[in-house]
């Protein structure tokens, strides 16, 4: 039996969990650049309508007491945010005209 990554209440998002429950911005940004627009559109379409429910669910628990599957759900919301610019603005994974420019997030808050 496969182990699930997300709380059972969000089993509908499980197909995206293995790819997009990523702990750091660096991983999420790399996943964005490595993804097709169709892949990101699927994540976006699945998570956007569920985001309010996910935040309401997570808000019942203090941020530093979230269990592993709850943290995964939070990370999935971060990935939703990460793909939002390609979907809503750019029509491509990269920032237009950004060429070789990079901006690394060296320190980020948890969880």
């Amino acid at each position, binding site marked *: 039996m496969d182990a699930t990554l997300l709380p059972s209440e969000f089993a509908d998002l499980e197909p995206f969990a293995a790819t997009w429950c990523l702990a750091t*911005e660096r991983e999420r940004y790399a996943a964005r650049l490595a993804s097709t627009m169709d892949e990101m559109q699927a994540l976006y379409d699945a998570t*956007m309508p569920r*985001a*309010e429910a*996910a*935040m309401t669910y*997570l*808000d019942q628990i*203090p*941020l530093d007491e*979230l269990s592993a599957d709850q943290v995964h759900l*939070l990370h999935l*919301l*971060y990935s*939703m*945010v*990460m793909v*939002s*610019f390609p979907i*809503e*603005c*750019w029509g491509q994974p990269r*920032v*237009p*005209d*950004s*060429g*070789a*420019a*990079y*901006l*690394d*997030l*060296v*320190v*980020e*808050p948890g*969880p």
Partner: protein
Amino acid sequence: MPRWPKPPEGSWTEHFDLGTEPMNYDDSISQEFFELEREAVFKRAWLNVGRVEQLPRTGSYFTKELAVAKTSIVVVKGKDGEVRAFYNMCRHRGNKLVWNDYPKEETSGTTRQFVCKYHAWRYDLDGACSFVQQEQEFFDLDKADYGLVPVHCDVWAGFIFVNLAKEPEQSLRDFLGPMVTKMENYPFEKLTERYFYRATVKSNWKLYMDAFQEFYHAPILHAKQSPPEWSSAAAKAGFEAPAYKVDGPHRLVSTAGVHPWNLAEDMTKPVDRVTRSGLFGPWDAPELDFDPKDAGINPAGCDPWGLDSFQLWPNFVILVWGQNWYLTYHYWPVAPDEHVFEGTLYFVPAKNARERVAHENAAVTFKEFGLQDANTLEATQTMLESRVIERFPLMDQEVLVRHMHKVARDWVDEYKKKQDVEV
């Protein structure tokens, strides 16, 4: 008709007496000017290297690479709670004292003492040399003569500054002046959730300062970040700042804001509505309990108010947002056509997932904008270097660009004059 009143002289540029003629950017492409800046600017001005929250405990330290001064420093919290800075160099054979794996990469941590990797000389947190390996074999060596070399270090409003001059010409407080020091009434200490971004940018450090000290470019360069309805309205309106201020080498631009939650749906991005956050920060601002007037913030009394961007000479920006968060920029010169850019976002720590997601959307949005700006600069740098054009017009909303380049030239000229007198 201007939306905001201009000073009696008719323009901000004339109000600050900066001249209205086209500008030359030789100061951003010349190797000679860059070499002068090392001495005239970066070894004379107070430089911000971090905040006190980065040193939470006795023995907490971080290193800072200062390529422009060809040196590295270590900043440490002593047993007495004092923050001190030292050149990051062992007194024995000159090895870099504190580093991990890669000597040129910055590091941080907590320690009881510093131990050189080369011959294990040890230094206390106050810089005193406490141990010399095989001391008896040295010749007339007194450890008291071999402490770490101190760097002038002072703290204002939790911001740690250093000064690389042998004797600073001004105290930190005098250097910052009243416009900046008034901001100490802002509750910086409450905003400790930190995102720290870094990039190497292939442009002169001053050109990136320029990009963030005028908002004339904002409706154009960043048009696609917003829904078309918003972008076309913004471009049509153009940009006008309600207030600019100048105090010595430092400057300030203030902007009016919007309340995105009051806008029509087609004026905001869907993810911004879902996360209640975006470029201007979280829509639900945390309580901060301070009076902007006491802190010299929002000088035009805008409601809604957008942001105040304080440009601290030479390379440090504190940008305070109306939605009760702030960010800082640092621009560390490496070469005439290269600098290290650092952007740090500070929020009141999130208490729950909803607040944390709102911070995440503000941070991601910041990066999308930053990447566009950074690449535009490389495009500017390479063409300036062609020297095909040497005179460039600046409009009144670019007044701070004019001011900063004047300050840079003034500091270099003043330094050259002093050198001539001494020679």
